[in-house]
């Protein structure tokens, strides 16, 4: 049942003739030519069959419950894809005259206004292609802001529960990262924060709710401490799905934020991307955004490059436009009432799972959780079954595993984010399966240890992959 590598499929002689045959009579001189290019020549049906076989080996949101914590694997509405594919959007070159692209600029401008209302920010850039690139943008803005105020603070504070991209982004922007500890309730420890918050701090990066799925209740106190030190507050919007329409990052005191449109705003994840990590800032930081931003002068939209304080550009052109179009469609569909219902349902779904599973799997924090819940499999671990084993067993029951071993603070962590688009029926199925797996820990541990057995492959030897370093196909004998 294995699937041949595409390079091993029988070669065809036929050309697919996708292109017009016709020549004006010019040809590249030999001396510029490459050595022979050896890509397989395949028929269209060969290619279609190949990729269909591959696609059938994957779990996806459209086919499976996918409670991958922190990734917000909600349903991706099809109207969004349809709109992104409209020829009047998809057949635009980024260097066309402004008068010919007023429609897309209007969309971007309107979308920006909607995002400002939803977050309390004053302006957005659409350039960052992911959350991490948004974080880098934000950190560069923080750096430049301080520099223009004659300061050079060298540190950025991140909690021990932070996603790996936070410290990595701060480091790329040239900052030293300082870790603030969490307290026993899973929240930023205010006393520890006081100890490290001083004038050498450029910014603190937080996600709220944090990666334990808990709301940082002391957010205004944190704001006060940051203010005193002259530090900016950066919001990692990965978890915004819990709070849409309930509060805004601005109300919580944040100066710079990114939103992951591929999470809260329902754009499909595409095996890992493209996404969009749009960045919003308050009024005082507007001029620091990457160029260009979309502006409107007397009814006409244009791209403004004239921003003296701008950090520069993060990518060529303006952003992952077809991702932005999907998110824009989504937000128009939902409106103010809809986004609030999204968050309420996302939080309700997570709490339901937490309540129903907390007797079987340790939930390290008692409080009501937000849109996701982190369990610890330490009790199972004592009996020889790890979080990884449980994750693999879920695959056999047609469920994509939760995020494993993150946040690092929780031992044997399984981070479950059901999202609002899942029904009680699906949640009950998941709960039932999780309980069954927990009883298998006693009754039939080997079935867990050997899982999965229903997939095209059994457990994959990742250690061997590191050792073998086989990153590409080679022709026999090469």
């Amino acid at each position: 049942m294995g699937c041949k590598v595409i390079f091993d499929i029988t070669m065809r002689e036929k050309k697919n003739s996708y292109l017009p045959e016709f020549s004006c009579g010019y040809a590249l001189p030999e001396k510029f030519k490459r050595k022979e290019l050896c890509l397989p020549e395949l028929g269209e049906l060969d290619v279609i069959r190949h990729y269909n076989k591959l696609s059938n080996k994957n779990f996806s949101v459209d086919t499976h419950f996918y409670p991958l914590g922190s990734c917000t694997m909600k349903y991706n509405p099809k109207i969004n894809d349809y709109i992104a594919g409209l020829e009047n959007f998809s057949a635009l070159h980024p260097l066309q005259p402004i008068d010919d692209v007023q429609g897309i600029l209007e969309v971007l401008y309107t979308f920006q206004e909607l995002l400002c209302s939803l977050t309390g920010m004053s302006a957005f850039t659409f350039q960052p292609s992911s959350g991490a690139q948004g974080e880098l943008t934000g950190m560069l803005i923080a750096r430049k802001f301080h520099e223009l105020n004659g300061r050079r603070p060298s540190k950025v504070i991140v909690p021990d529960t932070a996603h790996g991209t936070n410290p990595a982004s701060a480091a790329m922007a040239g900052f030293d990262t300082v870790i603030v500890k969490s307290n026993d309730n899973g929240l930023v420890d205010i006393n520890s924060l006081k100890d490290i918050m001083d004038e050498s701090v450029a910014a603190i990066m937080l996600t709220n709710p944090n990666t334990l799925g808990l709301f940082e209740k002391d957010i205004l106190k944190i704001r006060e401490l940051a203010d005193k030190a002259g530090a900016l507050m950066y919001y990692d919007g990965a978890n915004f799905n819990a709070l849409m329409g309930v509060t805004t990052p601005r109300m919580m005191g944040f100066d710079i934020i990114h939103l992951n449109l591929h999470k809260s705003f329902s754009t499909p994840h595409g095996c890992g991307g493209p996404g969009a990590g749009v960045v919003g800032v308050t009024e005082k930081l507007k001029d620091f955004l990457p160029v260009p931003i979309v502006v409107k002068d007397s009814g006409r939209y244009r791209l403004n490059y004239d921003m003296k304080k701008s950090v520069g550009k993060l990518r060529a052109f303006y952003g992952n436009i077809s991702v932005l179009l999907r998110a824009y469609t989504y937000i128009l569909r939902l409106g103010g009432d809809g986004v609030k219902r999204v968050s309420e349902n996302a939080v309700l779904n997570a709490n339901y799972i937490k309540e129903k599973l907390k007797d079987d799997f340790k939930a390290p924090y008692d409080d009501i959780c937000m849109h996701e819940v982190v369990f610890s499999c330490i009790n199972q671990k004592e009996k020889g079954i790890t979080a990884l084993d449980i994750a693999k067993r879920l695959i056999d029951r047609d469920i994509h595993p939760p995020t494993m071993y993150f946040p690092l603070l929780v031992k044997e962590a399984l981070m479950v984010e059901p999202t609002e688009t899942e029904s009680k029926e699906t949640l009950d199925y998941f709960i039932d399966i999780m309980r069954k797996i927990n009883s298998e820990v006693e009754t039939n541990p080997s079935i867990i240890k050997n899982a999965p057995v229903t997939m095209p492959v059994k457990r994959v030897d990742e250690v061997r992959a590191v050792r073998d370093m086989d990153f590409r196909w080679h022709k026999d004998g090469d």
Partner: protein
Amino acid sequence: MPYILNTENDRQAMLRAIDIESAEKLFSFIPASIKAKEYLLDKGCSEFSALQKIKAQAAKNTTVNEKKSFLGAGWYDHYVPAAVFDIISKPQFLTAYTPYQPECSQGILQAIYEYQTYMCLLTGMDVSNASLFDGASALAESVLMGLRIAKKNKVLVLKGINPQYENVLSTYLGGTTYIIEEVKTIESAISKLDDETACFVFQTPDFFGVINEPDEVISECKKYGIITVNVVNPVSLGILKTPGERDVDIACGEGQPLGAGLNYGGPGFGFMTANIKYVRQMPGRIVGKTLDLDGKTAYCLTLQTREQHIRREKATSNICSNQSLNAITAGVYLALMGSDGLSNVANICYDRAHYLYNRLGEIKDVRFSVKGEFLNEFVWNVKDAFDVLACMSDKGVYAGYLLGNDYPDMKDSVLTCCTEKNSKADIDFFVNKLKEVLDGV
């Protein structure tokens, strides 16, 4: 309520199970002072209304298909076979996430492994990652990689890099103390190489379309242990000499020409391939081949200790989500085209661009200030180029990109591109309209 399946009954049952009266109460520990008092946006609307509204906005655009477009400058209007759309719209590609769990993601992983192979074959390099964001950030990441390898401070850039890429490079290095220096010629590049230089960066064909071959600089770089970074257009590699043949250390660029379509500038994807000895310094995800417990071939993400989720602030990059679907698209595109198809695309681009170049040469007010062999793009000069381009657009031709936007000393220079979508008739139309414009008709 769109996209929510639970009924009011379901919700009530769930609330009872967690012993809470209302959904509002789930948010009770949020301080009242920071709770939104009212809806933050207008009310939502039906799918039909949303579609009407957005279609009305879409109608305000004029697409490249409504005029004759000769725009390139880093973003190319190539023909994409219909089968590409079919494959990449499959839900098991479109709505899956990063293949963290290899057992239920073998299809994604194999597709990426094949993509990596395709990029290695195209560029003539040893190893490819699974994609970066775009060509510009791929260059910035390549330079950062070079700086890590060489452990020195200076980056030398040969003029002719896409100006947007240069801008992104300096943004990415904005928080560091590294020095970027631009050199205009191969001679000055050689004279500037020294023990402080970490990286030498060049693009070919360069931004002006010229197939430049800085061979002497590359061999000179080897003497100093300087990492060479080559920005390339992947379609050009259907026929042009490869980074591998040039013996550079890192190749990178924008993958958009490989099946992505235009989409007003995004998404495409960034690609990066390198010499195998540097693989541990590469940014981004990499798929490797291995075995499962039964000894069957299997694939998984590998060398993850380079990455942010493990190495955090010491990672080779902060990148997490990338542009996988576009990378897979490139694989599908190349599978459909084959060697023959891809070299055909490049040959047709060459053919059409040279036909246009020669036809423009017939016009006495047109000059060519940039010399050198080119592939699909070239620079021509005309007085008052800004106005000429505006008149051409009015006559139904996007005649090119005004280089004065980026280079103050090139305000009368236009960068014009041909692809396989431009027919001979389109080109003749271009030339006729240009004659009219210059004759003041």
